[in-house]
């Protein structure tokens, strides 16, 4: 209790609730009557609460009083933060309790039908309470962060929302620059970035358990950062947009970068494949210079703007370095044969770097061919054809990944690699195989009816593995079978290894293979899904 008392200051909390508790009462009332709009409402009320609680920072009279009190600044911050959290969460909890009472006690009294079909279950209400509470608190925390870095309520309000889009925006802009200036960058599947934008998450989608945890961690992290900044912040802070000079600098560079990338993107009238890089660089220079100095004019209010050209030179230097690295070092790099420990290839994607997906090439001859193809691809810059992902593991421990397109002239190499990989993949002992799944697409309409069965008997597996090897090793059209380590293909044979790895077999002669490996007794107990 003593520890609790040393952390919390009930006088500060009580005082805040006395002054701003009405926000919570208002929130409860509003939520009660506007349940459908609740999340939009939460987004606004969270920011307003942060503004009410931390607004004293912008008023010299109030901040002087607060900071003259015998309470450490971090404790002032903590207790103010808690006050706001109480104002936000208590109405949500109360509304949750109200809903539970309504759904479990009041509604059944008036309803003769099975109300559970129409109304909320307790689980629904619990999820709703957690969703709304976590959404409110993360937005509130971000808004408190915004409050700490700026110097008036309008800025704080706007920044609260702007900040939420910065991480995703930066990510998109950086990927755009990499795609523009590099050749061979493995395009990864666009991840779902909505989780990084709390207001989007709050309104449109459900949280997974993982996202709940992620948000709680994010709240702690942002709180800690804001608390640290609060201590750095001076009581006598000026009326600039950003009260700490180094945050002002970060902002300057971030805004310059955003405007540069986005505006250049908007000015791209041509086909994206035909843009000239030098043209992009010129546009980047012009836009960034203008933006940089406009931002300087706004933040410095006209004092010492010309002196800040050095900061711009730093920006140009860093940007130039990145573009140079992407364009030359990155795009033209081919590892030396002696440095390579392993080469792994995939034709599908590089998103999952699980070793099972990428087959190690051990054949010296094939390795050389891949390296030559890599060198040729850098020169040829093909952008059509089959994707090939090359994963190098170098002797110094570095991993290097590139993606190229293999045009028609590489069909031979493609087949060779494909063949090699299939052989390697299926160069297995039947004792390593756990089961073989056979999925047969029906011939009659509707086509999505699939017959499936598994081969699990040892003797049947032995027979099947023998047959499959036979097909793989024979490249005649009669027995052409392809191989993949991923897939949802319905008409296939899936070899499941003891370690869980799956190898998918498919191709024009699939029906024949399926027939050849089918054990006699399974014919009778074909399952219909």
């Amino acid at each position, binding site marked *: 209790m003593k520890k609790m008392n040393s952390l919390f*200051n009930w006088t500060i909390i009580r005082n805040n609730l*006395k002054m701003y508790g009405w926000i919570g009462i208002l929130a409860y009332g509003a939520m009660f009557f506007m349940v459908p709009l609740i999340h939009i409402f939460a987004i606004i009320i969270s920011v307003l609460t942060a503004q009410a609680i931390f607004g004293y920072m912008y008023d010299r009279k109030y*901040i002087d*009083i607060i*900071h003259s009190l*015998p309470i450490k600044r971090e404790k002032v911050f903590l207790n103010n933060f808690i006050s706001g959290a109480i104002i936000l969460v208590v109405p949500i909890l109360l509304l949750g309790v109200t809903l539970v009472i309504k759904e479990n006690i009041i509604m059944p009294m008036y309803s003769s039908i099975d109300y559970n079909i129409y109304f909320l279950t307790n689980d629904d209400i619990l999820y709703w309470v957690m969703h709304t509470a976590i959404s409110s608190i993360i937005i509130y925390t971000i808004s408190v962060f915004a409050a700490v870095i700026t110097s008036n309520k309008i800025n704080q309000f706007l920044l609260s929302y702007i900040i939420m889009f910065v991480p995703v925006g930066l990510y998109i802009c950086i990927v755009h620059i990499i795609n523009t200036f590099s050749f061979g960058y493995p395009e990864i599947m666009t991840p779902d970035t909505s989780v990084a934008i709390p207001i989007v998450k709050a309104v449109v989608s459900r949280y997974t358990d993982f996202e709940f945890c992620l948000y709680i961690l994010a709240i702690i992290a942002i709180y800690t950062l804001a608390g640290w900044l609060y201590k750095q912040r001076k009581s006598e802070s*000026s009326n600039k947009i950003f009260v700490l000079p180094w945050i002002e600098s970060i902002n300057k560079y971030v805004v310059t970068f955003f405007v540069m990338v986005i505006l250049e993107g908007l000015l791209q009238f041509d086909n994206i494949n035909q843009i000239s890089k030098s043209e992009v660089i010129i546009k980047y220079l012009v836009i960034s210079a203008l933006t940089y100095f406009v931002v300087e004019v706004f933040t410095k209010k006209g004092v010492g703007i010309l002196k800040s050209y050095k900061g711009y030179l730093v920006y140009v230097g860093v940007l130039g370095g990145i573009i140079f690295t992407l364009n030359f070092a990155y795009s033209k790099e081919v590892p030396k044969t002696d440095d390579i420990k392993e080469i792994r290839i995939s034709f599908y994607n590089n998103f999952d770097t699980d070793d099972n997906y990428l087959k190690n090439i051990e054949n010296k001859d094939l390795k050389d061919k891949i390296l030559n193809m890599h060198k040729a691809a850098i020169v040829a810059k093909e952008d059509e054809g089959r994707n090939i992902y090359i994963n190098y593991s170098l002797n110094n421990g570095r991993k290097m990944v590139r993606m190229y397109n293999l045009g028609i002239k590489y069909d031979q190499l493609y087949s060779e690699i494909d063949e090699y990989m299939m052989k390697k993949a299926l160069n297995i002992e039947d004792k390593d195989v756990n089961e073989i799944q056979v999925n047969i697409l029906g011939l009659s309409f509707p086509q999505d009816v699939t017959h499936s069965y598994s081969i699990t008997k040892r003797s049947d597996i032995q027979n099947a593995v023998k047959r499959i090897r036979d097909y793989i090793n024979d490249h005649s059209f009669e027995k052409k079978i392809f191989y993949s380590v991923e897939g949802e293909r319905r008409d296939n044979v899936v070899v499941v290894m003891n370690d869980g790895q799956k190898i998918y077999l498919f191709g024009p002669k699939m029906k024949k293979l399926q027939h050849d490996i089918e054990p006699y007794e399974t014919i009778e107990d074909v399952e219909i899904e």
Partner: protein
Amino acid sequence: MKMIEVRGLKKSFEKLYVLDGLDMNVNKGSIYGLVGPNGAGKTTLIKNMVGIYKPDAGQIKINGEDVYENVDIKQRIAYMPDENTSFKNYSIKDMAKFYKGIYINWSSEKYEKVKAVLGLDEKIKIDKLSKGMKKQAMFLLLLSTMPELMLLDEPVDGLDPMVRKKIWNIIIEDVVEREMTVVISSHNLRELEDFCDTIGIMKGKKIVIEKELDELRSVITKIQVAFDNEASREELLAKDYILAKETKGNMDILIVRGSQDEIRNEIEATKPKLFDIMPLTLEEIFIYEMEEAGYEKNELIV
């Protein structure tokens, strides 16, 4: 015993120094008057002393400890800003409740007593009080925290004499009873001279003169003197303890360094026709002190 010891204090705003190498000493139980023109940095100094501002450089020791973020020390300080503040819509009672929760030494007994002396209605919202009443309400709240040190930023400037006297009386009571220390700022020396025992004068981002008044009064004396004998007059006027002179007819008005007794002996030895010791205001003393310290007379416009 020193209550406050400031050494080499520097504080800047936007790279502009407001305090630059300031030293200050306040004895325990003393009433220290901080005097300087508007903009001299008095408020900034006080805000540094109460831990609102963090010094750029230098030290502020209160009871021998740094004040910034020092909860124990700040518990013992009562600070009165130049602008009155309470939280919005708070009555005196609400503020009292708040302070009671914050200050461990809060005395409800003291609160009731001072409230009765000042005749304040605790239910009235502080925002609605007149300027003088607000100040009184603030004094009520601050004194109830039983501070060891009061830092008052222009607390009596612009108040009517009755209110001012009332406030001074309660302050002095605590100084006498509990050996409370008071630092009080004003741009007007006259506001302070009747109550302070020490005066610090701020000028050019520093405290240029810091003296106990008893000491000051004992070192500078104003006299008027007339001679029959011109030679005796010449002889006297040539003495180096004369700081300033003014001649009216055959009467010389002199400001001299030295206590009244010393001066009396000195002068009477020269057999003047007329000799009088005249009252010297605090303001005059400081003007001559400043001149001694190398400042122009008109630099001390207080």
